[in-house]
């Protein structure tokens, strides 16, 4: 069971690749997804910047992207990926579909978090004569902060899962290691270690998210 064909160094590289893919696509995905979620909330019927047109265009687009399984999205947008990063294989090539996968997901989660903010808070904001931007900045976001942190935690964990499929385009990472060495070369040790590593990473992310959310809720 302890006989394995890969080195410690390969593990470390794989972990690094996973962290880079998750980190970069989470960052860019959040930069797109958070504004997307805010837009969904403020343009919806009854929102502070109600816009039927905007909402009815944005909403289905997000649904369409969200309905594609990641493995299909990954290969379906290869031409787009090539256009953007000049290659269709490797870690940077995996980051493009990961970002496109996670941004609408974050958008939806952020939307849900913001919708949890009590109607009365928004009414109070409106009664103070707050502008739509002020409503978002001083009322919506601070009140939803704890929930938003948990949202990003969920998104991060979803992203870690998705990186396992990045091997299809040679993206590397621990998931790829498990498939190409553990599964295809019958190296049980790699599978076990990969699972342990993933569990530790996910646990760590979740605990950190819970801690930060608790802190945000009670300052």
């Amino acid at each position, binding site marked *: 069971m302890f006989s394995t064909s890969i080195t410690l160094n390969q593990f470390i590289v794989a972990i690094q690749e996973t962290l880079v893919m998750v980190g970069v696509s989470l960052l860019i995905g959040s930069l797109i997804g958070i504004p997307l979620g805010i837009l969904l909330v403020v343009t919806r019927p009854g929102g502070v910047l109600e816009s039927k047109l905007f909402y009815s265009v944005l909403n289905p687009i997000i649904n369409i992207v969200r309905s594609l399984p990641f493995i299909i999205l990954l290969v379906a947008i290869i031409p787009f990926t090539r256009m953007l990063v000049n290659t269709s294989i490797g870690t940077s090539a995996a980051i493009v579909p990961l970002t496109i996968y996670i941004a609408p997901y974050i958008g939806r989660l952020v939307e849900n978090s913001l919708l949890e903010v*009590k109607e*009365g*808070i928004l*009414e*109070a904001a*409106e*009664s*103070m*004569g*707050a*502008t739509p931007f*002020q409503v978002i900045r*001083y*009322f919506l976001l*601070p*009140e939803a*902060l*704890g929930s938003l942190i948990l949202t990003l935690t969920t998104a991060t964990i979803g992203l870690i899962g998705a990186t396992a499929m990045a091997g299809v385009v040679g993206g590397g990472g621990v998931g790829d290691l498990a498939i190409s060495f553990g599964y295809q070369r019958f190296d049980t040790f790699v599978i076990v270690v990969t699972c342990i590593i993933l569990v530790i990473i996910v646990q760590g992310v979740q605990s950190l998210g819970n801690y930060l959310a608790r802190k*945000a*809720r*009670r*300052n």
Partner: protein
Amino acid sequence: MIQMQDVYKVFERKGVTNEALKNINLTVNKGDIFGVIGYSGAGKSTLIRLVNYLERPTKGRVLVDGKPLDLFDTKQLRAMKKNIGMIFQHFNLLESKTVFDNVAIPLVLTKTPKTDIQQRVTELLEFVGLGDKAKSFPNELSGGQKQRVGIARALASNPSILLCDEATSALDPQTTRSILQLLKRINEEYNITIMIITHEMSVIQEICNRVAVMEKGEIIEQGTVLEVFGKPKHPTTKNFVRTVIQDSMQSNMKELIQRQSAQQRHQLDANQQIQIYKLEFVGEHASEPIIHTLYRKYVNVQLNILFANMTEIQSTTLGHMVIQLKGNNEDIQEAVAFLEDKGVTIREVKE
């Protein structure tokens, strides 16, 4: 200060129209504490939201300070809202911010300098009696304290009008009283016009000077609190008044008297009779020794007080009394005339 002219409000949801307000006409004068009372669903909440345009009228006009709100653009409306503070039944405080930051929000929105904010918020928290709670979070406060924070926040931008949307409905009677006293102080010390909506008559009795009674989207009665309490016309108004003023006998007492007078009637002389009257005293009449004079002056009339109650409204006394008079018809009529002459409202009660 606030005027509503022929205001209608219709809500349409899934093709079903609901007329929330019908033909509303009212005027709130500067310095008033104006109460709007009604059962839930009467349209009070919609009515108060018209004042700061959280709801727009479907028809008719709302004027604040003589200016019609429908002519304002978005920017002017925002400026107008800064002149109108509002407090809510469920306080609507930001749970994620301290008491200090909650009160500071209206000032932050107007980009007030930090040192001014510090000074104003400290002063407001002292005023509402929460000087030591600046660093607390709303979930560490009691309901009454939360409403005090709400009040401080509503006052931060120095408004001239304060709207209270069921501000005491989530509070116990004692806390309600202390919040009402605070509102009265705000009215007197800062000369802020207050509009209150409530379903509790005691709120109206305690602090309002004028009142409108609403039912099914309409104002069914309005006037000074004394007028409306003293002479309620509409059955709904009477129901509300009865929640705070007992103006007639309890039913078991009534039955007893009916039985007694039926017995007595058999023993009456031919020209004698028994009559029951309901009396109403307002203001100074309530403190004059009228009954004493009646008793002394009309010795042929036997006087029996069946029920009496005094209530104070707007520092005026309102008295209700039910009396039984026994004697000759002429003597009784003379006694009644005497009471009417003294300014007492008198009405015969048929059994």
